[in-house]
């Protein structure tokens, strides 16, 4: 760079107020951009992490979530006999038949009676636990099979009224006691309540299962098991890898967030670019004399162009850094919302990843580039004599 970078940096510092305002505009845009991407990322990551790559979920064909799916006992037994199902060292088949329903619970903190959410109650078997290595008890204990005891994911214990340890819930004309709280990390299970599948089926009078989950003996055997399930005329079922299954459940909402977020961001970014343009045009106008002087001294047009572009790129860089800085604090926030697709409660965190940082920074630099391009051209194309005269 022929014109020293300190020239560009110091000029930004000289017009501090303008620089701060322009940078703030860009930072805001980058913040919104990053936050949206972080939200969509957090949503998808939570759901994808909910599944294990070596687990297979079997559900009724055409249903978009476990709540809508129903598998009769007969059909479940057929799936149970599949050769691809893993068998542990005790000879136990690593397969579980589960039932999933939604119950309406009142959220913590909101006084309005209408602040409800639909929480997943999952009836599980003993085999369900080894299939979900992410799940760990953090307080209390596991419920006893055959009883009206339940355990609750920690997002639910925290976010909803009356469902902490020792809390009780009433449904199906029975009282259920929370005997334990579990942590499933940042996965969907943390937003669930678990109980004995037979008890749950009885209480809700649902004589059918919602899904069957099993672990693959061998990862490569997924296509074979999928084929076996889907082509069997006795079954009206579909199979997916657990990770894929949960990823699909995030699609509608992730897509919504991305479209809404990105279109708003683009509109805001136009505003930020205009702000940068005004700032840079004004900067050029105030330094006509300097530009003439530098050209007289022998600096080329392209050197002048580079110097002013450097200034606007710096604006973009600083704006991007500030925006990302504040966006990173969003990682402490947990979003509690209903997944549009499954209609059930899901808690997830804003998640910042390397690619998001890169995208946000590039976006910011591009804003700086576009905003500064025309003014930089104007600066470089000045006539030396006229510029000196105007000084």
């Amino acid at each position, binding site marked *: 760079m*022929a014109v020293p970078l300190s020239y560009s940096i110091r000029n930004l510092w000289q017009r501090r107020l303008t620089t701060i305002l322009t940078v703030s505009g860009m930072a805001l845009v980058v913040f919104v951009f990053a936050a949206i991407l972080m939200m969509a990322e957090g949503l998808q990551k939570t759901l994808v992490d909910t599944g294990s790559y070596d687990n297979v979920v079997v559900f009724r064909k055409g249903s978009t979530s476990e709540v809508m799916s129903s598998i009769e006992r007969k059909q479940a037994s057929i799936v149970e006999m599949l050769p691809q199902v893993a068998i542990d060292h005790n000879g136990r088949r690593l397969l579980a038949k589960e039932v999933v329903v939604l119950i309406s619970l009142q959220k913590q903190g909101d006084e309005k009676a209408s602040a409800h959410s639909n929480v997943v109650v999952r009836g599980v078997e003993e085999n369900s636990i080894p299939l979900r290595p992410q799940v760990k008890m953090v307080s209390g204990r596991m419920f006893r099979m055959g009883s009206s005891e339940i355990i609750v994911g920690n997002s639910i214990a925290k976010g909803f009224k009356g469902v902490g340890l020792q809390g009780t819930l009433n449904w199906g004309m029975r009282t259920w006691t929370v005997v334990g709280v579990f942590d499933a990390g940042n996965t969907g299970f943390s937003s669930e309540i678990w109980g004995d599948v037979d008890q749950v089926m009885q209480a809700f009078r649902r004589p059918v299962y919602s899904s069957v989950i099993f672990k693959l003996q061998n990862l490569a055997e997924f296509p074979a098991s999928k084929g076996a399930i889907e082509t069997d005329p006795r079954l009206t079922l579909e199979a997916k890898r657990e990770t894929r299954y949960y990823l699909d459940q995030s699609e509608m909402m992730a897509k919504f967030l991305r479209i809404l977020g990105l279109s708003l961001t683009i509109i805001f970014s136009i505003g930020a670019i205009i702000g940068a343009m005004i700032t840079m045009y004004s900067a050029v106008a105030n330094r006509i004399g300097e530009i003439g002087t530098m050209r007289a*001294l022998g600096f080329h047009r392209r050197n002048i162009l580079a110097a002013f572009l450097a200034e606007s790129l710096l604006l973009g860089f600083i704006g991007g850094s500030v925006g990302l800085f504040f966006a990173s604090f969003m990682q402490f926030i947990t979003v509690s919302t209903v997944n549009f697709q499954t209609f059930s409660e899901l808690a997830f965190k804003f998640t910042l990843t390397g690619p998001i940082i890169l995208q946000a920074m590039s976006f910011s630099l591009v804003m700086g580039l576009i905003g500064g391009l025309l003014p930089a051209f104007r600066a470089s194309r000045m006539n030396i004599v006229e510029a*000196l005269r105007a000084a």
Partner: protein
Amino acid sequence: MAEQKQNIVEIRHLYKAYHRGSLVVPVLYDITFDIVAGEFLALMGPSGSGKTTLLNLLAGIDKADEGSIRVGDMDITALSETELAHWRANHVGFIFQFYNLIPVLKAIENVELPLHLTSLSKKERRDHAEMALRMVGLDHRMDHYPKELSGGEQQRVAIARAIVTDPTILVADEPTGDLDRVSAEEILAMMERLNAEMGKTIIMVTHDPRAAQRAKILRHLDKGYLTDDDSQNPL
């Protein structure tokens, strides 16, 4: 004796007009003259006479419509804009009426600025700049910004900047125009020294007769024409 003095600048049949839309306003008509190496020339004339235009053409920051200008061995009228920029960086030192220092750069950085166009290292640049500032007696103020310096000091920094690349010619456009009498004297004395002791060729445009007095040769322009050829300074 009779040391054949070299012509450092040769101007032949220079013609320049300004174009405002469809209006053509000639400013210089058929200018022809030479400048010898080591000369201290003052160009005088009423406002609108074209003296600044002539200076601009000499310095390569404007292009003539017709005619040729040779500086050193270079016909600068044949150079492209990029080549001219490169040429200016190596052969011309500028001294402006309003100093034209970059406000956000310190004195030393202002003097260093033209050196960024050379291939000198950072240390070499710094050394050259310090030397130039020392020559104008301002090395103790090298870390000051222009707004912290008086008019006279700023012009001295500008002079340091003008000589730091050891240019072929120094052009000065009303160098004392914005200075009080004392500072003006200082600057003119400095320019005289540069000319006498370092053999710098200086072409100065001025309408201040006191400034013109310090030059060795005087030329007059009026309405675009050189009026008196080769007249020696009546000092």
